[in-house]
């Protein structure tokens, strides 16, 4: 992998890129410490800080565009974090700036949308504080120039995710989901942490530049271990198998959170980690192969789950899992896949955020009803939402010439080159996507109205629909812009290297046409079952497969029987052991001494003559001893 050298001491907007992190962080601090005093204008401050970060990102991007390819990786030194180990700094390169633009751009739109969505919530200020905190942490994650900085951001977004999933924490289900998300993420973090330890002991550094420079020289086994450990971290954060179970529960959070954190940005951090650590993965082909396996397994699992969910947000969450599976797959393919992974990540950020916000708009209109079986025929009452949602829908199923078409097709094509089995599985996944996304679309916006009696749906206010429109515009054009002429690939090349030969765009290849055909079939089945036919208000029992998918492929059941139950037993045993065995030993010793002395004190019977006898014995023994010693 040939990447450009990192240049120290950046100036201009790039030199001030720390503001991207500092501004939202400041916003979060003001809103949290200010308390109720900031209730009136808190949301505006939150939006302003997010927009400020976006402006800095754009300025840095513009400055970067004006530079040579070889000068596009700039380091910004901040401060000595752990002397002798970690110097905190930022690395502004094409990869990180792409993420920064996505995070601040989509993030700002979601901030704006939230003004409307959360307008009736008494805790709106706190919501914006957490959103700001999230943006700051996410930017630290992608901008840091070392693994420890990434780890701090990594756990920081985990915290923000925890706080936001549990935002309505008076609901026990929300609080439990938040806790679950954090703990499952920590399992991933465990892997990431040990991966970082291994990087440190292998290379004596945790900064990207020096480590990647010599990454290839390390022992193959060590590199594979590092790769797999980083992958474990990525699986936790990106809800990939086997750590996927938290994402569906995370939909307990307010919908803008689902859009920002659990669709567009945070969950893609795992893809970022794999792409960023490309130098390590490319030197460890086993680890790379495992990445693709995880990606394919998750893209299928997510798609299957998405087919059976009646909760609109959970259906979308399944689809998020599945799409991130595509990105993982691409990221595991090496330099040829990186650009497609990032391109799909960016377009997915747009169309999935678009759809989540659309779902939020629908829920807003339907008194927070999430069951799609109680929707239907909403197209006529909420045209803007329906059209923008529809654009996102077309983009995700890969309708020709829309964003998802270009990016997903690129992933499938490059997978075909590396391993046809993976490629065809990805094609199958695309077909399932066509089915379940059409199902969501038809159940929500078309067919008969199955509304609850007190539902009076209406279009959402402009502050909510304008972000939808902007996002849908991105969903239409972004894919073509990024992929055609390998624009993104060439832009990213200084950061992640460029493949030996650039892939061309083949619209009429066999996999491409098969994909389109399968998607069409999927959509047709969905139309037959959920568009034209009557959708029952109560979900039918369904086949074994439906139950399987509805129960999230028994992921929770597995976790429960494998970890939770034994864990609970272990806890009970440990507490019992501690109280009875460890403490029991100590208390037993004390009781033993107490009991012995209790018996011994009986000797003190109050009869002077028995004392006199024992004195006599004692004296006799002393004399005897003296006599004995005298004879020696």
């Amino acid at each position, binding site marked *: 992998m040939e990447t450009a050298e990192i240049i120290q001491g950046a100036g201009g907007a790039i030199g001030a890129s720390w503001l991207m992190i500092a501004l939202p962080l400041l916003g979060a601090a003001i809103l949290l410490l200010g308390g109720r005093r900031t209730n009136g204008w808190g949301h505006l401050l939150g939006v302003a800080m997010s927009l400020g970060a976006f402006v800095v990102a754009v300025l840095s991007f513009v400055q970067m565009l004006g530079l040579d390819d070889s000068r596009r990786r700039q380091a910004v030194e901040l401060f000595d974090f752990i002397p002798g180990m970690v110097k905190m700094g930022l690395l502004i390169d094409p990869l990180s700036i792409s993420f920064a633009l996505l995070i601040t751009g989509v993030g700002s739109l979601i901030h704006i949308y939230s003004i409307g969505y959360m307008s009736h919530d008494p805790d709106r200020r706190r919501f914006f504080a957490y959103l700001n905190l999230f943006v700051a942490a996410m930017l630290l994650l992608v901008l840091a120039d070392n693994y420890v900085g990434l780890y701090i951001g990594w756990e920081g977004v985990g915290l923000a995710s925890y706080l936001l999933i549990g935002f309505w924490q008076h609901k026990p289900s929300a609080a439990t989901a938040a806790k679950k998300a954090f703990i499952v993420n920590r399992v991933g973090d465990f892997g990431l942490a040990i991966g970082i330890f291994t990087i440190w002991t292998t290379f004596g550094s945790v900064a990207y530049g020096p480590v990647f420079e010599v990454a290839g020289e390390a022992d193959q086994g060590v590199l594979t271990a590092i790769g797999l450990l980083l992958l474990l971290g990525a699986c936790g954060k990106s809800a990939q198998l086997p750590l996927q179970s938290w994402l569906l529960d995370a939909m307990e959070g307010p919908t803008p959170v689902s859009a920002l954190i659990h669709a567009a940005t945070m969950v893609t951090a795992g893809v970022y980690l794999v792409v960023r650590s490309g130098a390590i993965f490319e030197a460890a082909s086993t680890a790379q192969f495992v990445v693709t396996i995880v990606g394919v397994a998750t893209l299928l699992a997510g798609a299957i789950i998405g087919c059976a969910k009646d909760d609109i947000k959970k259906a979308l969450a399944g689809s998020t899992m599945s799409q991130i599976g595509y990105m993982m797959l691409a990221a595991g393919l090496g330099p040829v896949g990186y650009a497609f992974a990032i391109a799909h990540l960016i377009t997915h950020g747009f169309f999935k955020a678009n759809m989540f916000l659309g779902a939020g708009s629908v829920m807003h209109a339907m008194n927070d009803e999430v069951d799609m079986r109680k929707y239907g025929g909403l197209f006529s009452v909420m045209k803007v939402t329906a059209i923008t949602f529809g654009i996102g829908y077309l983009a995700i199923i890969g309708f020709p010439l829309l964003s998802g078409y270009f990016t997903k097709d690129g992933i499938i094509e490059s997978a075909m080159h590396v391993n046809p089995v993976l490629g065809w599985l990805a094609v199958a996944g695309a077909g399932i996507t066509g089915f379940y996304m059409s199902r969501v679309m038809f159940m929500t916006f078309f067919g008969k109205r199955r509304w609850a009696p007190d539902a009076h749906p209406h279009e959402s206010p402009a502050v909510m629909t304008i972000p939808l429109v902007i996002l849908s515009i991105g969903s239409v054009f972004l894919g073509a812009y990024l992929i055609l002429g390998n624009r993104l690939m060439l832009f990213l090349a200084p950061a992640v290297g460029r493949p030996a030969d650039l892939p061309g765009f083949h619209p009429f290849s066999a996999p491409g046409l098969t994909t389109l055909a399968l998607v069409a079939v999927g959509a047709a089945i969905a139309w037959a079952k959920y568009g034209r036919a009557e959708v029952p208000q109560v979900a039918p029992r369904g086949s074994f497969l439906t139950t399987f998918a509805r129960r999230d492929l028994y992921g929770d059941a597995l976790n429960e029987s494998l970890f939770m139950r034994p864990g609970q037993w272990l806890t009970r045993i440990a507490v019992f052991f501690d109280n009875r065995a460890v403490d029991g030993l100590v208390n037993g010793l004390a009781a033993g001494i107490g009991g012995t002395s209790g018996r011994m004190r009986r000797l*003190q019977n109050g009869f002077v*003559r028995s004392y*006199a006898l024992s004195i*006599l014995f004692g004296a006799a023994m002393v004399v005897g001893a003296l006599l004995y010693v005298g004879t020696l």
Partner: protein
Amino acid sequence: MTTHYLVLSVLLFTIGAVGVLIRRNAIVAFMCVELMLNACNLAFVTFARQHGNLDGQIIAFFVMVVAAAEVVVGLAIIVTIFRTRRSASIDDANLLKY
């Protein structure tokens, strides 16, 4: 030469010790204690004579002084107990126990 004195001393001491152990009357036990002390005095004086120095005699005087003080305190206690409990048996005065 001094063996007889020592044998006497041992006999006196044994009588005193046995008396303390078997007699219940406080006054008698008390006398027996005095007997033991005096047995010791006899032994001290004997050894002083045998070694030709005054150490033993000096200690004998100390013992006498202590014994006198002890008699004063001891008799006072015995009389007080007798007054309150109408008994001079030491087995009756067994309240100070476990």
